[in-house]
């Protein structure tokens, strides 16, 4: 830095010089222990690759046991509608006990059972029962499978009515219009959500140890006897890790858009801006953990507890916040991921909807201010 050359050390030049010195020191430390670089660049790539390809709620080729006690052209028609569906891998079985055994062993998720008198019963006024047994342990999958079977049943009814020269008449038919994600591709919301989870980890992991490390090794005392102020100290920590984190963030967004083909319908700059805000919250949380704990072991433990699982379960990324009990909904307000999940889902899939972005961005700004302010206070107290 050229400040201070020739003239008496001005405050402004002094700040810039001290700050650049601190940033340089931090960068040197980052380079010596490559784990920070791994956190910022290797972790997001590895996790996004794994999850972007691995995680999906779209059940396809669900194994279903099909038990037909007496084959006829009617049963063949119905089975054809199941065979024809992309959603099932039907497995023919001879008897109900055999199918039950497969269900218990987890080899099939459901059983479709047509009784021996299926063809006769079809012609009776009451109609024929089609027995469906689903394994309810995974309630969500069970519900999806039920929906698929209903779909196949409906296709079969329509087809049958058509063959008999009439129209299938059902009073009310639901015509669904799914906005923002018409194919209901779960990856389109899982990937932006995973970006939020991963950024939470990057932010907290980068900074959770750095203040505690200085305290533990006694270098904090060494820093304190220099003219460096608390604000400069914090900025010196924040700037390098923000740059690293922003790099990881850009990498994640690039992967979401180009590799996983999630549409980015809103403005990139708005996403960048709000993501930076979120990164400040995440870094601020790490710094706060670090400066309160003053001990790397405890800081590490708190980081493990406070980051991943809350961001995963309480951010609205997987579980709908509106369906949680009121107390738990209140608790989700202290999870920064909640605000950024709302923003990123909207920016990726819906566009620049200010009524969603503005309040959530304000909440993020407030949280960043609180975390950094608290860090500043706890650090100052010890200086006195």
């Amino acid at each position: 830095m050229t400040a201070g050359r020739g003239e008496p050390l001005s405050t402004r030049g002094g700040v810039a010089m001290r700050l650049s010195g601190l940033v340089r020191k931090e960068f040197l430390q980052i380079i010596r222990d490559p784990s920070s670089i791994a956190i910022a660049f290797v972790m997001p790539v590895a996790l996004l690759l794994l999850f972007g390809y691995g995680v999906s709620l779209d059940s396809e080729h669900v194994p279903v046991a099909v038990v037909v006690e007496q084959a006829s052209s009617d049963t063949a028609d119905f089975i054809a509608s199941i065979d024809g569906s992309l959603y099932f891998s039907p497995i023919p079985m001879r008897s109900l006990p055999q199918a039950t055994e497969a269900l218990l062993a987890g080899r099939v998720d459901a059983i479709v059972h047509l009784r021996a008198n299926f063809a006769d019963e079809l012609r009776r006024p009451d109609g024929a029962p089609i027995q469906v047994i689903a394994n309810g342990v995974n309630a969500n999958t069970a519900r999806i499978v039920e929906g698929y079977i209903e779909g196949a049943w409906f296709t079969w009814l329509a087809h049958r009515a058509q063959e008999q020269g009439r129209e299938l008449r059902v009073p009310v038919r639901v015509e669904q219009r799914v906005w923002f994600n018409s194919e209901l591709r779960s990856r389109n919301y899982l990937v932006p959500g995973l970006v939020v989870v991963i950024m939470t980890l990057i932010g907290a992991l980068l900074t959770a140890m750095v203040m505690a490390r200085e305290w533990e090794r006694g270098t904090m005392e060494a820093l304190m006897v220099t003219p460096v102020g608390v604000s400069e100290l914090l900025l010196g920590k924040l700037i390098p890790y923000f740059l690293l984190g922003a790099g990881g963030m850009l990498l994640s967004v690039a992967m979401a858009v180009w590799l996983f083909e999630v549409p980015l319908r809103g403005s990139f700059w708005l996403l960048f801006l709000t993501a930076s805000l979120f990164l400040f919250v995440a870094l601020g949380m790490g710094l706060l953990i670090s400066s309160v704990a003053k001990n790397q072991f405890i800081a590490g433990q708190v980081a493990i507890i406070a980051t991943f699982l809350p961001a995963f379960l309480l951010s609205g990324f997987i579980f709908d916040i509106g369906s949680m009990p009121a107390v738990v909904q209140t608790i989700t307000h202290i999870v920064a991921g909640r605000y950024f999940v709302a923003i990123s889902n909207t920016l990726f899939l819906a566009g620049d909807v200010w009524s969603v972005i503005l309040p959530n961005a304000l909440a993020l700004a407030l949280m960043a201010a609180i975390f950094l302010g608290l860090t500043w206070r706890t650090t100052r107290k010890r200086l006195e």
Partner: protein
Amino acid sequence: MWQRIAALMRKEFLALLKDRRSRFVLILPPMIQLLVFGYAATFDLNNIAYALYDEDKGQAARELAATFRGSANFREVASVASVGEIAPLVNSRRVLLVVRFGPQFTRDLIVGNPAPLQVIVDGRNSNTALIALNYVRTIVNRFNDQWSNAREWPKPPARLQIRAWFNPNLESRWFFIPGIVGVITLLITLLVTALSVAREREQGTFDQLLVTPLRPVEILLGKALPGFIIGFLEATVIILVATLWFRIPLLGSLLVLYVGLALFLLSAVGVGLMISSLAITQQQGLLGAFLFMVPAVILSGFATPIANMPPAVQAITLIDPLRYFLVILRKVFLEGVSFDVLLPEMWPMAVIGALALFFSGWLFRHRMY
């Protein structure tokens, strides 16, 4: 030998529990998380905000709208008077869906023609959208049955009789809470083990440990047993909360559950110690803990089924101990299966645990810097 191990264990317990903050971190937050997550983790929607757009204003539309209002899962927050009002409501996430009755709705139904019901749903979270549509369909199906019976519409020649075994009301909490038991147990073991060797390495006390008469096996046991014991005790509390507080049925035998728990703890402690002994600094240990925990949870089948993953990723899940433990938890809790059914889930955890522990012991001596 046991005396030396006991002394080392004593030291480990002191290092973990003597500090008030450390004691606090180890006990209170995991228990709070158990309660909060237990309530948060469900795919059941009970508060679907929707708006009604009734262009029909006829009797049939009123009847169907009344069933939406009467449903405990739906909450009407607005009514729409023109098409232009729909987009702002959905965009701002004030409503998840809009139910729209066309102008012909009642007239069509009365003369015996099928009537469409348009449902516009916010697909930003496609899973929530799918579940909400499912609920809508259930309501409409029930309405159709009533309407058909009352007006003698032709009945379909076949009807579905759907039953769900093990969880007749399809409560998704029954699925998630056993999963949370596994996730929190993993969290606790990692809290105890993942940084323990790294801390000693960073502070230089590990070298001192290595020059004592303790053999690597003894150091390994001394480091592993505290994690095992703390994990075992806290898991017991967690299982009690799951059964007594959340009232999840526990149909199977406790013995099978605890054999599964012991093997899971063995593997989790093993992996935690391995991470810890690979790391030279605690920062690296923390990174390792996350690089293990995050994939271990997300790929375990906790929230998204393993069957939906591509084959290559499914192969990776085979080294995830949580994957096996979740199957054991769910099968013992909800299905009450016996030990032999779970054998295929038991032995992989034993193998993972043994390999990880062996490798950690080897690293004690061979990872020097």
